[in-house]
């Protein structure tokens, strides 16, 4: 056991009032740390009331991911372009197997992607998460034709194999209809 240091001032026991103040201060600090402060925004209040504590933070994050400006930018893009492809990488250089497959399928069907709008979600984190929120679709790539959400690679491949994709593209004027007799 070490002998008490002689250079330090002698500690004085806390008086009762001091103890109570310290106790109250600590209590307040712990309470503030553990509980959510009541929000003043009624919209936030209702979503907090409904959400479990572990979910609330991600609800906030998700709500913020699709900003109004991004939403209107996406609205304009799908409205003003016959075909929009949200992908990883670019048509010349896809950076994911699924995105590459989508580009290939569209190419095989005769769609010239240089004439259409494509977005590289890897360049923009807000877009990457926002488009999932916008389309209510969890994966990339995503295809829109004449403002309508079509699907991802699975759906594109399925429609390509069944002939539905050709029919859709030609009925929407994105490819020339096949002439009879030209089929291999």
């Amino acid at each position: 056991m070490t002998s008490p240091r002689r250079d330090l001032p002698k500690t004085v026991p806390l008086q009762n009032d001091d103890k109570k103040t310290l106790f109250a201060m600590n209590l307040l600090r712990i309470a503030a740390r553990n509980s959510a402060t009541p929000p003043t925004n009624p919209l936030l209040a209702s979503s907090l009331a409904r959400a479990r504590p572990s979910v609330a933070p991600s609800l906030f994050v998700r709500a913020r991911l699709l900003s109004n400006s991004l939403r209107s930018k996406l609205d304009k893009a799908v409205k003003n372009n016959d075909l929009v492809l949200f992908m990883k990488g670019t048509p010349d250089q896809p950076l994911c197997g699924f995105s590459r497959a989508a580009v290939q399928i569209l190419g095989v069907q005769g769609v010239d992607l240089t004439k259409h709008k494509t977005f590289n979600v890897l360049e923009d984190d807000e877009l990457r998460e926002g488009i999932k929120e916008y389309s209510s679709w969890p994966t990339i790539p995503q295809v829109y034709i004449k403002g309508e959400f079509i699907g991802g690679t699975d759906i594109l491949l399925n429609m390509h194999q069944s002939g539905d994709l050709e029919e859709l593209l030609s009925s929407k004027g994105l490819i020339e209809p096949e002439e009879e007799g030209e089929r291999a």
Partner: protein
Amino acid sequence: MSEIVTQEHLTAALKERLQAEHVEIIDNSGGCGSAYEVIIVSSLFEGKSLLERHRLVNEKLKDEIAKIHAFSQKSYTPTQWSSMNQTQK
């Protein structure tokens, strides 16, 4: 952060939430549970378009899909599945 999604968990979830009669899962991630291909056979798909089927699965597996990096699906009704298998024999 989040626990990995196992093949067993996915299979059970599909059977329970989508009344899947048959489920096949391929793990394309080398065992680390981050890339799955699933085949689902369920009568819930009757009368639903391709997009509707995919959206149904996406909805029921929302939490799982959020945790994995790549997910692709093929959905069939029991009738489609059995006729597919018959033609292959």
